[in-house]
């Protein structure tokens, strides 16, 4: 019933051909709506952290060699164009991303998808509904990786003269929503796919319209003047006015953090665990709340406290200035001997929340513990480059930390990529050049523990080490706020980057 108009933060409609761009928001609105992946996130509950569930694959298992995975596909799934989903189509989709000699190779989708499945070495059709995927080394995180990869229709691509440009205008997936209208940068109209394989997820709405509205105030004004029914990431200061006018604010914990990634190169003051702990304890996270309109979860570790992988770390980074100062004194600093550090921050950036005021707050807090922070403010794009370049790069100009917000939804993005010795910049995104044998062993263990429950235990152990060693400056977690018109009903905000829109209805 009804039309839901959504104001996105993206400046453009995400890539419609399959593998989306525009980060998490892209997957949220154009990935998991129009498409499905073999393995998906469970988005039905608001109360617990989401876990992986079967998607287009109904079951999967790894062989004795710990390298070959076998996937059984769901029977009877059809694309919006009517063509059936088969193992051949899945392989075709993987080639689209990984095999640049294949006809269907699409550099734009590959740019988005390839790096998500580093473990995949080869794949093969077994029968119509069975395929195998072989990894280059044992890697138990493959299911998480595959949750990134969505399946587009091969038949549609062929019908569109094998031209991805044309596919973009009229794409076809297996997802609960069909794209019927697409005006770049302006709007995309999604309607329910009545033949969706999961009847419980057939959308109740007549239409869902996506509108890019990158400017926060334009979003707020659009919502309040009734031009859209839903906006992503309302600016905190607009929230009271919205609530006063009857708009609803929906928010929930999800795997996203706002942190200072610390440099561990030689000479960095952050190499001293006392300093790291002191800094963590110097921040009064509760006092930061008003700045964000209460829409934050104070960090107690790298992952949100509600995460299944949080574990039970001994170190509690909660505010304790006395303790912090004591630690600093132990480390050789004091009121007359401040520690001077340089920090990279950026004035804006996707998902960065309110980087300037938040960083200034951190700066003031650290000053209380005799840590004087000098900011090096760079533009967001530049910041990404510096982040890739690593702490040792000249361009970083001696900065000893970088302020970043991380998508931490799976073992790789959540834990491994930040501290793996093999991913030290520029090979990967271990910005701080951290390398610790113990940690390395834990990462190895994650990849080789194929039993989900055991794996969870290892992940917890890893995160405990993150916290106990105070490897980051843990500050806060975003809660993915969105403002909804009072007419929007039935939305359940999952603890995830992605959301389920099928349950939503519009009141009259």
């Amino acid at each position, binding site marked *: 019933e009804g039309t839901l108009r959504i104001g996105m933060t993206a400046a453009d409609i995400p890539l419609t051909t399959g593998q989306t761009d525009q980060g998490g928001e892209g997957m949220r609105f154009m990935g998991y709506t129009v498409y499905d992946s073999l393995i998906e996130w469970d988005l039905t509950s608001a109360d617990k952290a989401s876990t992986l569930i079967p998607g287009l694959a109904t079951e999967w298992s790894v062989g004795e060699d710990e390298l070959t995975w076998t996937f059984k596909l769901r029977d009877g799934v059809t694309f919006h164009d009517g063509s059936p989903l088969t193992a051949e189509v899945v392989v075709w989709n993987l080639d689209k991303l990984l095999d640049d000699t294949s006809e269907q190779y699409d550099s734009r989708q590959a740019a988005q998808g390839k790096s998500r499945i580093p473990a995949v070495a080869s794949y093969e059709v077994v029968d119509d509904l069975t395929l195998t995927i072989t990894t280059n080394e044992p890697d138990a995180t493959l299911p998480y990786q595959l949750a990134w990869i969505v399946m587009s229709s091969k038949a549609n691509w062929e019908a569109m003269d094998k031209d991805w440009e044309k596919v973009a205008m009229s794409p076809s997936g297996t997802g609960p929503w069909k794209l019927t209208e697409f005006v770049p940068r302006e709007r995309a109209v999604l309607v329910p796919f009545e033949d969706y394989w999961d009847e419980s997820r057939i959308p109740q709405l007549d239409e869902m319209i996506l509108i890019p509205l990158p400017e*926060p105030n334009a979003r707020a004004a659009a919502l309040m003047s009734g031009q859209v029914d839903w906006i992503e990431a309302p600016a*905190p*200061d*607009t929230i009271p006015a919205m609530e006063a006018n009857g708009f609803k604010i929906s928010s929930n914990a999800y795997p996203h953090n706002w942190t200072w990634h610390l440099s561990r190169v030689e000479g960095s003051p952050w190499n001293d665990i006392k300093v790291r702990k002191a800094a963590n304890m110097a921040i009064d996270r509760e006092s930061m709340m*008003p*700045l964000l309109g209460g829409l934050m979860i104070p960090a107690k570790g790298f992952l949100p406290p509600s995460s299944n992988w949080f574990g039970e770390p001994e170190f509690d980074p909660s505010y304790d200035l006395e303790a912090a100062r004591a630690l600093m004194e132990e480390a050789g600093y004091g009121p007359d001997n401040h520690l001077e550090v340089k920090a990279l921050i950026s*004035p804006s950036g996707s998902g960065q929340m309110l980087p*300037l005021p938040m960083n200034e707050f951190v700066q003031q807090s650290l000053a209380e513990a005799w840590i004087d922070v000098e900011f090096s*403010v760079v533009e967001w794009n530049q910041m990404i480059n510096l982040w890739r370049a690593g702490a040792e790069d000249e361009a970083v100009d001696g900065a000893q930390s970088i302020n970043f917000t991380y998508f931490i939804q799976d073992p790789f993005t959540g834990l491994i990529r930040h501290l793996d010795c093999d991913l030290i910049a520029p090979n990967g995104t271990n910005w701080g050049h951290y390398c610790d044998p113990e940690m390395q062993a834990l990462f190895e263990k994650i990849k080789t523990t194929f039993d989900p429950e055991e794996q969870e235990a290892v992940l917890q152990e890893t995160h405990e080490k993150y916290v106990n060693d105070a490897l980051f400056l843990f500050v806060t977690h975003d809660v993915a706020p969105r403002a909804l018109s009072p007419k929007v009903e039935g939305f359940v905000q999952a603890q995830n980057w992605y959301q389920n829109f099928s349950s939503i209805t519009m009141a009259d």
Partner: protein
Amino acid sequence: MALTDTTGGQAVEPAPIEKPQGYWSGVGARLVRDPLTMICAGVVLALILAAVFAPLLGLADPYKGSMIARLKPLGTEGHILGTDEQGRDMLARLIYGGRLTLFIGLMPVVLAFFIGSALGITAGYVGGLTNTIIMRTVDVFFAFPSVLLAIAISGALGAGIVNSLVSLTIVFIPPITRVAEAVTSGVRALDYIDAARATGANAWTVIRVHVIGNVLSPIFVYATSLTSVCMILAAGLSFLGIGVRPPEPEWGLMLNTLRSAIYVNPWLSALPGVMIFITSLCLNLLSDGLRSAMNVRD
């Protein structure tokens, strides 16, 4: 010495030595008699002085905020003009903000005035091929509307004070050059230039003594009329996020960062806009006043 009186009686009355009244003192006198212009000059001067001597005014630290004291309304004790989204004192930020705003609002015009005048006077006086080269190049820049050019250059260079200065200076050189060229070739055609050349003076002397003095004031008046445009544009760049970077106080940027506060405290978030408006209004009026004061012939 015996001179025949051909003077026609002018020397009849005793001749008191007349006080030399220079051109500029004349302009000054006319300006002083123009109340509106004087008020505007006062406002602009006050802003500039406040900006320059901001540290001596005993203001709050414009960079130091407090999360508890965010977005306090106007008239709050200790924060007459309230506080911004980070709890920083608005009065202090507006005054310190004047520094950067006026700097990147006025400096490009000043730079462009010197560069453009030099180019335009050269083109206008020398003429010929030099003129063609300079003016055709200027024509190309004229093909870009000023806002577009400023945004394009700033957008390409990225945010930052220096980049803003560079892009705005580039934007304002062509119009000033064009005016300078037009004025100079106009003056070049006047008889007094011929009269000066007829004395055997070289080109540089003629330019220095006879051209510059006469072309500089119209160019200057024109340049002053650009200051308000430049200031609005500079603030616009910051507003777009390609001008001054946070956390520097700058009116355009403050306008931007306070935009969402409009729902909390509309008056507060209007303040930077009001400052820009008042300043550019005064600059415009000042420029008009200057124009009429410099017009010797009436």
